[in-house]
């Protein structure tokens, strides 16, 4: 048999569908046996008229047109290693006799993070620069973008800054809606002190933002967060969509600027996205140690094994009065070192 072309996608994430194909000079092939590795599944077959499964093989008895076969496959699971190579084997038969065995290699690449350095102990004192207290160095290997989320396992409380634009508009609007006229008067800025940047919203943008808000509204996500005692239906009844649009325009300007900051914090390095922006650990007075873990997932939603940051002892040298009066918060400063571990070239 003479093969004219063969191609397989040069890389894929775990669970990502990717194609392969072969073409050959017409030969009297009456059976093709395609053997993907055990942990692979087949999403689609190209140019196949009839097939059946035998064990972990796909037996093709008839092609639609001669001399071409291909498919869409995926690795079903999450490999431990950054680069996981496996062979897809395709056997060609004529009258039960093996004519040719062809192998194509699939490269499953994944992102992986590991810990390079983290503090063993941190000291809280009146002169402590809180913004430089919690530094964690992370090694990033493999391919693809990852979304990280820092969670507190024990001690401290981790806060994230999730200021999704539409959600923010809605929150502000509801807060305003439920104010008494006196409270509203009190909180409305006067013209003298209210600054402006002369950044305006286009009409179509306003419509889209209102639509976005409506989606959140209809799903009832907000009422759970802001007003535990009011149902989404009650909220919808009390504030019509038109009112949302009216409210959106003046608040847009400050939201633009806030969103710029939000995204700068959210994307501290290439390939890295921090879910909810930068995290801050809040130290309550009795905390003696903290334990953090970093959860991460790739662009198609694969969730990888979390990275545990070893216990960090907290030495609180502040006076008792200081401890009682003030909770201290320290941002988690993540530093990333990149290594192209999954590069096959």
């Amino acid at each position: 048999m003479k093969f004219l072309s063969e191609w397989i996608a040069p890389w894929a994430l775990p669970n990502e569908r990717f194609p392969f194909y072969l073409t050959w000079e017409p030969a009297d092939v009456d059976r093709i046996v395609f053997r993907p590795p055990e942990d692979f599944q087949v999403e689609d077959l190209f140019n196949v008229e009839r097939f059946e499964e035998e064990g972990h093989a796909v037996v093709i008895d008839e092609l639609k047109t001669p001399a071409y076969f291909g498919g869409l496959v995926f690795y079903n699971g999450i490999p431990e290693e950054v680069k996981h190579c496996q062979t897809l084997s395709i056997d060609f038969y004529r009258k039960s006799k093996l004519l040719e065995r062809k192998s194509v290699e699939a490269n499953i690449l994944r992102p992986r993070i590991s810990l390079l350095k983290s503090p063993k102990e941190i000291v809280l004192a009146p002169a402590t620069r809180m913004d430089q207290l919690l530094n964690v160095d992370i090694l990033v290997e493999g391919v693809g973008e990852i979304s990280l989320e820092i969670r507190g396992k024990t001690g401290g409380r981790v806060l994230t800054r999730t200021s999704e634009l539409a959600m923010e508009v809605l929150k502000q609007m509801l807060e305003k809606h439920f104010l008494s006229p006196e409270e509203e008067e009190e909180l409305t800025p006067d013209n003298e002190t209210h600054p402006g940047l002369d950044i305006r919203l286009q009409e179509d943008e306003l419509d889209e933002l209102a639509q976005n808000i409506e989606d959140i509204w209809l799903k009832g996500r907000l009422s759970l967060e802001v007003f535990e005692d009011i149902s989404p239906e009650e909220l919808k009844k009390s504030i019509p969509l038109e009112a949302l649009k009216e409210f959106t325009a003046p608040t847009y300007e400050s939201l633009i600027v806030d969103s710029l900051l939000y995204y700068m914090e959210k994307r501290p390095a290439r390939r890295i996205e921090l879910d909810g922006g930068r995290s801050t650990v809040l130290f309550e007075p009795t905390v003696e140690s903290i334990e953090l873990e970093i959860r991460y997932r790739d662009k198609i939603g694969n969730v990888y094994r979390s990275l545990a940051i070893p216990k960090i002892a907290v030495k609180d040298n502040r006076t008792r009065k200081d401890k009682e009066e003030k909770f201290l918060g320290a941002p988690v400063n993540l530093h990333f070192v990149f290594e192209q571990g999954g590069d096959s070239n």
Partner: protein
Amino acid sequence: MTDPVVGGAIVAGAKILAAAKATSEIAKETKRIMEWIEQGKKRFKKFKPRVLSVTIDHRKKKVEMSYFLYAPKGMRRKVTKVSITPREELRVVEMLDENFNVLTGLWSCDERGRWVLKPSSLPNDSERFRLRLEGPISSDVLEGLLTLSRSETAKEHGEYDAYWLSCGIRDPRTLRELWEDLKVEGILLKQHVGIDACFSTSMPKPLVQVIKANSAWLGAGGTRDRHFVFDAWRKRRLAERRAKDAQMPEILDGIVRLTNEETFKKYILIDSPFTLGDIVREEKFWNLWPQKMRIEAVTSLSYERKLVEGELRFHRDRFNADIEDSMEGLMKSKKRKSGSPRSKRKD
């Protein structure tokens, strides 16, 4: 034809299941398109019709048929009229004479909604004509015919990010049944290229300070505390001075300029046989932080060229350097006239 067995231990894909379910629908539509081609030949029988080409336009979801017609002066033109009924769902795209002039006003729509041609009105200085007709083709048929894939994630290669692209004829037999030399053109693969990290990591520090100071100032405005507002305003002015008078609307304008199609095109390279289609900034709100660009890669397939693959490259390092230069340029520019410029959208 036997339907493929699906839902087994290995072959569990949604695509193959959907394709199996749509088999009868695809067969019906294939038959309809074949009837169109035949109808064209029948209706122009007196003009020795020849099918020049049949093309599927993937982007427009249309099938286009191109016919050669021979209509010498004389008896043949005395045929009363040729018509295409609404039931046939066909549309006359254009008619050309032998010098490739577009002929207008020959086809009209009658009271029954039919496309009608009076051969007697054909121009006398041409005997040969080319007629293009088109009709719709459904997404189901296109999905059954073709397979389109692109990488979900980029792989870094030094200064650029690479994405693989692949297109193929999934069902070459149906393609061939429709028309021997059928071409599928305008096949569109949409690849998303993330650019948010490019901006967040390349923005000069003084400009980041301007953004932060503006945020604090706008926040202070809601408090009615004049001292607080004044303090925030002072810090904002200080940040702007450190950034050599670069102001918020200019930063936003700069971002918009870097992400318009013409500018962004120079950072993208696509392997042949793909060509670059439209480039669109994806997010809904233009004044916000740019997140991703949608890059369209276009190609064509036929029975002879069943499969194509290639790579799309985004020259990330060059883009980052240009962001830095452009933003630093805002700080170096000469003193502006008083009053802040308005932010504009790209049009």
